[in-house]
């Protein structure tokens, strides 16, 4: 009897706060049965730096800089199914609050006007990714297959979503798993 091939999952956090990843950990002891079904590729859990071919990619956070774009594209290229998880990934969320402001006035305020940061100049090291003028949700930059709303979505919602997906069903978050205030 051959062992059923495990699905490969990659996860990343772009312009997010890692809160959604904390919520992934909130599936608690169910992580053990999950690990019978899947193995993790690039993820903060594995510290693998680049993503290989995967079945499922889970992206937390939206797109606020050039590096986010590269990472998101890497995920799109390698993952058969790409999921935006959490408010920032789905809508831009909290980081998108800066969309009301002009980027140059943000940079001026932080690095030039306020004392104590970066010795009075805007950092320009090529190592640093440049910020985009606006923060975008992921689906405006690549095609996204599924969205898990919430800030963050609960561990139960994530568990339900992943187990549905792994079982080959269209994931559905019913009553109690999506909350509207």
């Amino acid at each position, binding site marked *: 009897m051959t062992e059923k091939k495990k699905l490969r999952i990659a996860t990343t956090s772009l312009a997010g706060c890692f809160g959604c990843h904390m919520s992934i950990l909130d599936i608690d002891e169910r992580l053990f049965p999950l690990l019978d079904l899947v193995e993790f590729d690039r993820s903060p859990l594995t510290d693998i730096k680049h993503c290989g071919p995967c079945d499922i990619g889970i992206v937390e956070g939206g797109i606020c800089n050039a590096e986010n774009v590269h990472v998101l594209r890497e995920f799109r290229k390698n993952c058969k199914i790409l999921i935006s998880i959490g408010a920032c990934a789905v809508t831009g969320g909290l980081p998108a609050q800066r969309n009301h402001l002009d*980027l140059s006035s943000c940079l001026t305020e932080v690095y030039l006007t306020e004392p104590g940061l970066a010795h009075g100049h805007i950092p320009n090291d*090529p190592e640093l990714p440049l910020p*985009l003028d606006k923060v975008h949700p992921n689906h405006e930059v690549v095609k996204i297959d599924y969205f898990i709303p919430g800030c963050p979505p609960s561990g139960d919602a994530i568990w339900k979503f992943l187990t549905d997906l792994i079982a080959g069903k269209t994931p559905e978050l019913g009553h109690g798993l999506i909350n509207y205030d």
Partner: protein
Amino acid sequence: MVADANVRMAELDQILERRDRDPGDLLQILREIQELRGYIDPATVTYLASQLGIPRARIEGVAGFYSFLHLQPHGEYRVLFSDNITDRMLGNQQLLEVMCHQLWLQPGKVSEDGLVSIDMTSCTGMCDQGPAMLVNGRAITRLTLQRVQEITHLIRNRTPMADWSADFFRVEDNVRRSGPILDNKLAPGEALRIGLNIGGTAIVEEVKKSGLRGRGGAGFPTGLKWEACRNASGTIKHVVCNADEGEPGTFKDRVLLTRQADMVFEGMTLCAQAIGAQHGYLYLRGEYRYLLEPLQEVLQRRRDSNLLGKSILGQAGFDFDIEIHLGAGAYICGEESALIESLEGERGIPRNRPPFPVTHGYMQQPTAVDNVETFCSAALAIQMGADAFRAIGTEKSSGSKLISVSGDCPRPGIYEYPFGVSVREVLQDCGAVNTRAVQVSGPSGICVAEHEFHRKLGFEDLPTAGAFMVFDDSRDMFEVARNFVQFFAHESCGFCTPCRVGTSMLKQTMNKIADGHGTQHDLREVEHLDHVLQTTSHCGLGRTACNPVLHTLRHFRPAYENRLKSLDFEPGFDLDGALERARQMTGRDDAGAHLNTEEA
């Protein structure tokens, strides 16, 4: 300064006096202050709050809802170009650009000297004589480059609007074909006397027998509505005439209120008699502000002839009068429950239905809300008798219908037909050639393509509120749909999420396709959004907001597909361009400071 402030408040007191300091008249009070001052300043809001005994937040909430009310200065001259697709086809955008250029102004901004602001507004109901604009709420028609230059000159010289040439403000009726309504020479009180002879119950029966159905688009049987209202328990009943003719491409109510105002009021008074109402309201859209005084004169004349007021025509106990309320630029107020909210001085947000207005309408009392043309038709049905009325039109659509024809045809204007006229006949009468499509009943209606021109206007086939916009084969139907989508996104009242967010997403996706970034994926997204809007919106606005896209996708899919990239997906914005600002700020131009928009 103190004396000055006192004078300013005294002006307000006059308005407040006239309105009995009734918070229910908040919208009318705000509208009058806006007309007086050009905007509603914070001190006024505070003063109103204290005088009306309501919180500032409610005042600002109402003022913020209506697009013709302003809480910030908007210039001494507030210019709004009508932006219906028919105005666009007549070149309104070039005219706006010229005017902005001449006044050194950006659209939507107020000039630095506070003189003028220029912006777009939804259809102002002058489609047969566009492009049109509103200046300080006054309608100006038949704009040309020369006319725009003259207006620019007048504004620059601060010429008071009272001194502007009357020709600017001339509104034509453009009646091209008349029938039993437009030809009617009803003497004031004629139908009413018949009504008084036969009595309220018989009026309801007669209207039921006539087969009259509402002319606002939905087509609910008018007799049934009046009967339900008559039977509803309530202390005070109301008649409301919906003259908030906001559906782009519709202007028949404007013509009826100009030529047959007596017939409208006669219909309302008959309704009052039928249901036992004492109060009537005409809700007139703000764009038709210029009709207010003429209509008030008609009302006064009717009062003087004892056709309104106490003991109408000597009938003891038959007391009824009509008041005119003006809207302030909100399409949603054409929806009857939103209209009632607006009458009560609130934001025009549709109510949950049921209960329907016939039992819980204005002030939660039984209210019959009908369209201008419906009241005319009701008066006609009583005047000529149900059987004669029924003989006009078709079996399920009795009577005649006013069609507002605009767009690509040599004879735009009002055409009155018996129901059952085909699209092709109307096209022939208005002289349209090489017609590609007709938008029947406005953006929320139906887009009819050439192979369907045999279809007939009427409740059996093509129900219509009256708009009939003609597009010839030089027109791009994608752009038509995009204009309508922008309209709905602008007019969504913001109450329910599917409509507030959905109409904006639809607009963004249509813009993305227009900008050449569209892919097959976006078309699928549009279809999905349409489904969400249709199935989950709170009211008809959201449910019909997707119609223009659904219909044009069905008939003119190539107009969309020609714009698509073959790629599966493409971002809707220029990624590398989005880094430009940061490149400027950091002085970087290395490889890492750039992004390809299309994924390699």
